[in-house]
């Protein structure tokens, strides 16, 4: 049997899946839109693949102020859900900016949050990458790094997180429920993504066998009238973000009461722009306020040789996203 072979298990129920998931070499399979390409490129070689796609984890419910999305809900189903469209348009925007229609039809919420970086050094088993192969070094830092991070990088890793949806969810302070054979825990989405170390760069803080089962947003519908997801890319569709911004505002009595800003394509995780958010509070949604938020967004950016253009791009994207979100009724 080939070393690329694996046992395929269609889990009968969640407890069965979680029990199997703890074993070494296990991998969960939902939509498979990332796992399969990784496996085909010899970047991952699971011994046991546990299919969870049919488990009853795909429900989308709105109850009071809370939106709950099951981890195996398909992206296209979430984006088409009437309650999501009406009250959480930012989630729909983030999804519809992702991938292609075909991919969205099979890709799931949980899988989207756990997709691995598109850094070409990670995606090529022959190149140095601490994320793929801890201790092997980082080819990107001094190589082709147009796509690399501005924030949150380390000497060991400058790879970005590729998800659009995660950026939108980060802006809405989403929380996730993580299950394992020993129980459940809940954490903020931002806690899912650790920053890289000197020689390691884990994708997530999930422990072996843990599975995202639920994504939850509390009271996020208050941003429904003033939210947008802006994605900048080299072609019009089917490309990961060069830079993206999720903006959500609550405007009351002509002033910004609350602001949420997260950026994609610039950090190892959805990068919340807290200084920009704070600067907007209490201000009228004017060009001046937006420009100030844009300028604050790029504070502390650490460019590499090939990605300094992302600094003005991020500033402009923040301003544009705020103009769009602030201009809505």
């Amino acid at each position: 049997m080939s070393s690329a072979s694996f046992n395929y298990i269609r889990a009968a129920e969640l407890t069965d899946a979680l029990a199997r998931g703890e074993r070494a070499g296990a991998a969960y399979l939902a939509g498979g839109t990332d796992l399969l390409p990784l496996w085909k490129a010899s970047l991952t070689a699971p011994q046991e693949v546990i299919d969870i796609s049919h488990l009853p984890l795909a429900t989308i419910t709105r109850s009071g102020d809370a939106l709950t999305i099951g981890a195996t809900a398909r992206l296209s189903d979430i984006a088409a859900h009437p309650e999501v469209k009406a009250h959480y348009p930012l989630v729909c925007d983030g999804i519809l900016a992702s991938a292609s229609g075909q991919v969205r039809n099979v890709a799931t919420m949980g899988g989207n949050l756990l997709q691995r970086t598109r850094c070409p050094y990670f995606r090529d088993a022959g190149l140095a990458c601490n994320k793929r192969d801890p201790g092997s070094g980082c080819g990107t830092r001094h190589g082709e790094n147009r796509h690399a991070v501005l924030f949150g990088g380390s000497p060991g890793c400058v790879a970005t997180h590729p998800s659009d949806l995660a950026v939108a969810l980060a802006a809405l302070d989403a929380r996730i429920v993580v299950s394992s054979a020993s129980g459940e825990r809940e954490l903020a989405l931002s806690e899912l993504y650790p920053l890289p170390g000197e020689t390691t760069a884990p994708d997530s803080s999930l422990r072996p066998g843990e599975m995202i089962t639920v994504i939850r947003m509390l009271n996020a519908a208050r941003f429904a009238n003033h939210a947008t997801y802006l994605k900048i890319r080299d072609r019009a569709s089917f490309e990961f973000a060069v830079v993206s911004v999720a903006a959500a505002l609550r405007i009351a009595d002509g002033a910004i009461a609350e602001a949420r800003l997260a950026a994609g394509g610039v950090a190892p995780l959805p990068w919340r722009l807290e200084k920009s958010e704070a600067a907007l509070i209490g201000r009228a949604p004017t060009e001046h306020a937006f420009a100030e938020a844009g300028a604050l967004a790029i504070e502390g950016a650490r460019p590499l040789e090939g990605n300094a253009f992302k600094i003005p791009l991020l500033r402009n994207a923040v301003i544009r996203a705020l103009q769009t979100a602030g201009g809505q009724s």
Partner: protein
Amino acid sequence: MKNRTIARYEGTLKVTGQARYEGEMMPEGLLHAALVESPIACGELQSLDTSRAATLSGFATLVTHEDAASLKPSAATALIREKAIHFHGQPVALVAATTLSEAREAAKATQASIAARTALTQMGQALDQAYEPAMVGRFPASTRRGDSAKALSEAGLVVRRRYTTAVNNHHPMEPHAVVCWWEGNKVVVHTCTQAIFATRAIIAHAFEMPPVDIRVLSRYLGGGFGCKGQLWWPWMFWAMLASRKTNRPVRLELTRAQMFILVGRRQETAQDIALGFVDGRLTAIEHDVVAQTSTHAEFSDSTAVYTRFLYACPNVTTRHSLVRTNEPQPVPMRAPGTAPGTFALESAMDEAAELLGVDPLELRLDNFADRDQENGRPWSSNSLRECYRVGAERFGWAERRARSATKVGRWKIGFGMATTLYPAIRQACRARVALRADGSLLVQCGTQDMGSGTYTALGQIAADALGVPMDKITVELGDTELPDGPFSGGSQVTASIFPAVEAATAKLRAALASIATTDATSPLGGKPPEDLEFADGMIRSRSGNAGERLTDVLARAAADGLEAEGESPATDHQKLAATGMGYGAIFVEIGVDPELGEIRVRRVCGAFAAGHILNPLLAKSQYIGGLIGGIGMALHEQTATDAATGSILGKSFTDYLIPVHADMPAFDIAMIDEDDPHLPGGVKGIGMLGTAGIQAAIANAVYDAIGKRIRKLPIRIEDCL
């Protein structure tokens, strides 16, 4: 000759999956092959450890340079006969096994020990080591007419700029594949190639076999664009050696990642252009090109060649030089030379128009070359000015001043235009036509259809010549058992097959006319042959109400049908009375978001003059396909090499961007039919025309929109911020 739209001959076969591509052949006992790749970019293979691979299940054989030592030395066998490592990912062995996954597993388990040397992985590291090749294609590498240095020193305006273009890869949808087997001393090779007869000839040379013992088939191709040629041969040879070694059929198919490395690329260029003007007329052009080639082979595009032809100018100097790097070898890619070359020249013309304060279209008209000044010959035909006029009118170029830099939503609008050109040449060709007793017609020619419509064109030419309906036509091509046909490249196939098929059908018409007119029982008996026309499955008298079915004529005198062969020669460049060139004018409207750097092409109008158009539907598809490729080169495509390792980065369609449907602009294609008495049937090639010119048109439109002159391809977000 008729001009008519006929749907694709093989369209139904393709959409219903009945068209068998060569890689789909699955003979009994087939072994699958995989390549062992070098992890370093420069060095020498010391040894291969196969001890583990050989124990794996399904392992059949391993083929290396030692096996290839039996092949005759040539440029086509050098890479597989020698131990030198020239580039990252260079195969050092081929493994064959029972299944594809077993072959890949065994290839992974094969350890290559390589003595590494310092690699030169980027052209920019060694510009000082540039050297001049002997030729660029069929053209001299350097030319000089008049004295450009003197003219530049005396010019009223000099525009002197550097333009650069990136490495591109061809990426046909169908990856290269071979399925081959030996029958005693004979070999059958099913493979994706744009040149079956050249492939047979190189096999004959390498294996020292008579060509008659070799059969090469390439009946359907899922695209080629120039990469299904000589760089594929070494790996195909290894598969053939594996088949001979095991006495079993062997199949090798490249992975998409290998398509970035093994079968060619459009070379990167750095081009220095100087244009000198006096009173708005070009008095001097200098065009110097530095481009990349590999350390194991030499190739230079004809990048500056078209600068010798396009404009009237008494003083023109062009030079090509090459830098060797430990990167993959370049080959021609669609619109070779003319795509990067016109990007530089037509961008510089736009810059000159701006500085001269004239409309870019006017400047081009003012500098129109009414003859081939490089060779001192007239054009066989040249409707470039008509292209400019028709294209400008349909596009609305006159509104440029009013429309440019206006905003539509977030997009700043820009207009740009440029010229495209490509030589009209032909190869030698033979074709056979056989009219059967039932009135059906078989047309045979050993050329290939890359997916561009050769089946249809071949059938259509024969159908029109003999008045046989298309549904009674069978076309066979892509098999060396057929008469020798042209390779599929250089926009030459239609122009090459036309005179050969005409010659063959003329013989059949004469034979049929003779049967009919010399037979007193025929309604056409006694009619002069020149009075006859062939249409609707009949021979008819033009002058009178008389006619007879082809089947009736055949039934009386040729019950087994009639057959004829025709042939036509290649263009004899030494004896040309006139230079054949196809032209086009490309007009584009783009939108640039100046804050976010995004660029989208909104509208493209291409007005083309390329002789007589046989089938407007196929021609339009070709032009649009070419323009899309040009948009990719202008805005998306770029193959990057990791400087530290020499590895190509991002070897997938996720990373190597090509335009997707959402990037498609509205296309308006105008075809200006030319009557060209110098060319058989007036046919010029069209395949390359759409892929050149548009790059400069887009760059010129970006300038028009936001006032930034981008002198590099691809133009990306960071260039427009």
